[in-house]
């Protein structure tokens, strides 16, 4: 039986590292095209989680584009989001939807790089 969930349930879930450390949360969900095509596009699959503190500015993009201006905002937002990092899906042990906790196999975060390197649109 395939369970249905909503993206917004994933956002803000608490994250527990393999060594029991928690306090960080899911601030974004990285999707990647899967091998199967449905309609015009490949189906998207959750490929990883952006993890950090739920502070203002998660959607501003300064954690993804290190040189994004202006300087004054970049300094403030990057300081707020200095803990932000990334885990691949294979680093995820399991997602407890009821307790809203993501259990990880790893103890650390990888650096976050922009998902789409080219300026889309």
């Amino acid at each position, binding site marked *: 039986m395939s369970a*249905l969930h909503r993206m917004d349930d994933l956002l803000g879930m608490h994250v527990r590292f393999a060594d029991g450390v928690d306090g960080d949360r899911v601030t974004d*969900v990285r999707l990647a095209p899967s091998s199967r095509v449905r309609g015009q596009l490949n189906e998207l699959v*959750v490929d990883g989680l952006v993890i950090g503190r739920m502070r203002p500015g998660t959607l501003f993009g300064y954690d993804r584009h290190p040189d994004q201006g202006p300087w004054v905002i970049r300094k403030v937002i990057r300081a707020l989001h200095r803990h932000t990092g990334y885990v691949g899906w294979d680093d995820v042990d399991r997602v407890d939807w009821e307790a809203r906790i993501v259990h990880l196999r790893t103890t650390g975060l990888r650096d976050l790089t922009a998902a789409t390197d080219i300026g889309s649109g």
Partner: protein
Amino acid sequence: MSDRIDAYYELMDRQILDHDGRMVGKVDDVELEERDDGRLYVTALLSGPGALGPRFGGALGTIVTSTWSRLSGRTEPARVEWSAVASVETVIRLAVGRTTVALDGFETWMRDRVIAAIPGSKVDPG
């Protein structure tokens, strides 16, 4: 479509256009299906107060959701199958027309009940 997408940064809360470029709604949420391989697949885009309400959380969220479900007579929000999506840019373009996705019950109600009654509503000002 570019390679990988960050859901909140590039998909959620984006404007959805039908294949004529007509605005049909926002990506108010995204439906994920947990399959046997344990992975979460995007199966549909969700639009309308039924999807947006819960995201407000708290009293506002419940009010929005319950009012919507009472007025629309539905409990599940409107869905746009992923197969209907043509491209993901700064907007989400659909491969189908707006009648197919039928996202906007409120729009149709307002058009038929109020706007159509006012003379000149069919005149193209262009």
